[in-house]
């Protein structure tokens, strides 16, 4: 799927993946790709501006960690991030239900 339809939803996707546990940038891209069965193929570099924005809003926090002998910046969901994820998820469900109702 082209990346344009994902515009505006990348933050939600990243928060959702981080709900499963901490991950680094590449891991997040891979997780989104796998969980969507390859449908969401994010432009990989653009994940970082989203992560920095989420960090600035204190929805995630990050730290350098040694992973498999290499230094990786690991992102983790904060409590505020968990609450934001629930709120955005519920907004998304309402939107999706409404779209389905119209399209059906």
């Amino acid at each position, binding site marked *: 799927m082209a990346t344009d339809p994902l515009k505006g939803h990348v933050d939600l996707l990243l928060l959702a993946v981080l709900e499963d546990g901490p991950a*680094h940038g*590449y891991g997040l891209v891979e997780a989104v790709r796998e969980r969507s069965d390859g449908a969401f193929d994010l*432009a*990989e*570099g*653009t994940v970082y*501006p989203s992560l920095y924005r989420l960090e600035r809003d204190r929805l995630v926090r990050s730290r350098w960690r040694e992973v498999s002998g290499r*230094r990786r910046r690991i992102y983790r969901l904060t409590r505020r991030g968990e609450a934001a994820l629930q709120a955005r998820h519920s907004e998304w469900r309402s939107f999706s239900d409404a779209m389905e109702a119209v399209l059906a």
Partner: protein
Amino acid sequence: VIESYLRELEQRLPVTRRRRFLKETEAHLVDCAERHVAAGASRDEAERLAVEAFGPPDELARQLAAGSALRVVRGATLVNLVVLASLLGPLYLIPENTLPPAPWDHEPVWIERQQYAMVLLYLAAVALAAVSAIAAWRRHPRWSAYGLAASSVGIAASGALALSLSIYWYVEVPGTPVWSSVVAALWGFGVFVVAAAATLWVRDRARAFVQD
């Protein structure tokens, strides 16, 4: 391939995010290339695919600049307000307390006009700085940046007038202490340089500033 991509990226990135982003990018590209190698690609091909998937450096630099715009502009508006407050010293406190009285009976009209212009420009710069700070805190980095540039022009003009007046005073009025003229000269020059740099910075970055 990865190294040359990182070098290209480095030249385009905003200073505030450069170091961290480059380190994360390198780790990301190495992971991605290894996945392609594991899938059977040659090292060169794997690195090329990794770089391609990461995206064009210009677009990434634009997105990062936009993401940090609000933070940068907020910091800049605070610095601007501090600079304006510190101008009260060379514009008012030092001249009032250190300069000898004018030797002439009637102050030349041009001096009076220049002083008025200096004060008006200063007040305009303060007003623009306040508007710029409000815009930054209301999440309008682009408008805040333009306000900041306009405020800088006002400060520079006011500083230039103050500088020329202090030089005139030093030459025409006996007993004017050297140090107050030196302070005024350095201050006027410093303010001009800072204002010019701020204006150039805004011109370069304003296009990348998007409404957050």
